[in-house]
């Protein structure tokens, strides 16, 4: 079953179509990545999912059923911009949001305490939100989204403002959340975060331009660049002209840009068959950003 199913969902603000009629199924038991640049319509899609705003048309289903607007405890939400009461004490704040999502008082408090321990903020329970650093506040925001163990947790740019150590902590917590049965939707413009996701959708200008398993997308859109190191003077142009469209020579190292459909190993075997003195060979990994740019520009783009 799918965690979330969007069919023909659409939303405009005035003349601007924020989300064009869109179909998307987010499978269950996954960390699903919603990747795209700022202004692509990710946040609008999220807000519609949460019922904060209503779509102009189309339906959104939660676990195969029409989403019950009343039952908002099914969702957990970490918004892009921090949304906490600056003057509230951390523990009170967590308990307040837990209550709003239907937790009983006793359960609420024990989960808040365990949650704080998990994100290493136990010592701050009685401090006010405004006394915390940006990164710490982000941890609290994450707890607010997850404490009631929602069916779907939607995290909008969760890593912004975090140092690398805390990014790793967040990723651990997010994986644990998935393992405990919560579906995670991760929305970010930092496309390198795709590694955390099993499946992704690339969003651009209110449309989904690419969707699927990260590995498959990688395979499909693998890099078209190989790096070859030679033991002696490289002399290859004529040899590879059928396979590559350009060569960038840098001393004894050459970066070849392959023609469409050519695989790295074709280049390698050709060179070896010709008896070239190859000392190193590597295929550059295409970054998700590169793939995105290529998809958006119709496959002709070049990564910068």
């Amino acid at each position: 079953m799918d965690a979330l199913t969007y069919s023909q969902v659409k939303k405009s603000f005035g003349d601007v179509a924020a989300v064009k009629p869109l179909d998307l199924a987010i499978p269950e038991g996954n960390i699903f990545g919603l990747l795209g640049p700022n202004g692509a319509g990710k946040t609008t899609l999220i807000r519609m999912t949460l019922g904060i705003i209503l779509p102009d048309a189309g339906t959104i289903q939660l676990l195969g059923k029409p989403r019950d607007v009343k039952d908002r405890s099914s969702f957990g939400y970490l918004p892009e911009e921090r949304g906490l009461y600056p003057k509230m004490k951390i523990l009170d704040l967590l308990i307040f949001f837990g209550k709003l999502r239907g937790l009983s008082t006793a359960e609420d408090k024990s989960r808040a305490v365990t949650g704080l321990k998990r994100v290493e903020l136990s010592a701050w329970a009685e401090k006010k939100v405004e006394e915390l650093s940006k990164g710490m506040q982000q941890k609290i925001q994450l707890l607010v989204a997850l404490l009631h163990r929602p069916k779907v947790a939607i995290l909008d740019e969760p890593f912004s403002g975090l140092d690398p150590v805390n990014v790793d902590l967040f990723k651990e917590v997010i994986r644990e959340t998935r393992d405990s049965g919560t579906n995670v939707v991760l929305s970010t413009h930092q496309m390198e975060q795709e590694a955390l996701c099993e499946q992704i959708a690339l969003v651009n200008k209110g449309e989904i331009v690419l969707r699927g398993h990260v590995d498959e997308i990688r395979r499909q859109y693998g890099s078209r660049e190989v790096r070859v190191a030679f033991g002696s003077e490289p002399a290859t142009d004529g040899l590879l002209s059928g396979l590559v469209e350009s060569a960038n020579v840098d001393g004894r190292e050459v970066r070849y840009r392959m023609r469409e459909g050519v695989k790295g190993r074709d280049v390698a075997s050709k060179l070896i068959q010709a008896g070239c003195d190859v000392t190193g060979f590597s295929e550059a990994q295409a970054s998700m950003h590169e793939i995105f740019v290529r998809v958006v520009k119709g496959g002709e783009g070049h990564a910068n």
Partner: protein
Amino acid sequence: MRTDWSNVYAVIRREFLERVRKKSFLITTLITPIIFGAVMILPGVLTVMKTGKPLHILVVDKTGWAGPAVVAAAPAPQQLGNTLHSKAEESAQGAATLQMAPKGEDLEKIKIAIGESKVDGALLLESDKDHDLKATYFGQNLSSPQLFQMLNSRLDSVAVVHRLNSLGLDRSIADKLKSRVDLDTVKVTKGGKTREGSILDFLIPIALALVIYMMILMYGVAIMNGVLEEKNSKVVEVLLSGVRPFELMMGKIVGIASVGLLQYTIWFVLGGFVFLMNPMNFQAHMEGSPVSILQLVLLVLYFILGFIFYSSLYAAIGSFCTTQQEAQQLQMPVASGLIIPAVLMAPTLMTPNANWVVALSLIPVSSPITMLLRTGAVEVPYWQIGASLALLVMGTIGVAWLAGRIFRVGILMTGKRPSIPEVLRWIRQA
């Protein structure tokens, strides 16, 4: 979509606890009555208290008969039935001593002494062409009405006796003629019941109306700012992923209203103590308590309804503004709905049954204040109270519904403030 009351309750609880726990709550709760008390009681207390040494006034007598009489005269008897007033006057008596100018001290010399602050003032007594008394006061400070009231009443009394004497009447008869008539006031209520009128007849309705006025203004603005703060700090996004906008709005209104009620309860209890112990002897007037049960019930009803009415509007304004300044501007027209009936307080009390007053007491915008003023001033027909309350209930439901729709859209709007047509569209579409 049904309202989830446990959500509303959670919001109420947070608003209440967070505000009551703040130090500023404690401070305003304690400071306000002190300031208020000071403003209301100090002038009275200061005039009652002997302020430093009494004024020294020399009497320069050119009549040959009035001087000693003015110095010796007791003030004319007053029957104002106003304790505060006569107390102040009494104190003015004590605050000045009159003394005949020593022989050989002429007015010019005394004026120089006044200029050098050696003497506070001089009272020149002369006979006019009809042999009647003419008086002039010389002094550095001419801004004490109490002093002149005192001087005037002494001069009146001396002059009256002098005039009567010159008509050949005996002094004892003259004193008799001088005495004033005592006017008592008796309040008549339904069924011909009567009780003695008191200053509280006048003060109670004003106090009730002011309580409502201040409370709505203070806490209405607090609600507006609270909404604005939630909107700007983006908490609202997290909240609305779990709470419906209407639940949030109602929770805020009730939560903040409870804070206000708590504060007012504290003030009433404190005020009660002061009332019973204050130096003006107000409790003498409390007999035959002028506040009826009906008035108290109405106070509570008008407070609750008026509060929801206005706070919904304030919440709606807060929801579609982005800055405090914007909100301040927009709340003016809303606040004027309260300010206008409050400004019209005096004519309302004087003509509580005039058509325009009756109209104001029926219209939901002004009824909380005007109707309370009227119930204090006259016996308002029950049908008018009923109609006023019914209209207010309907108005409140309408406004809350409208505000809810504006709130729902406005709270998530960022950037430019929406135009009026846009807001109207939200109301239709939301």
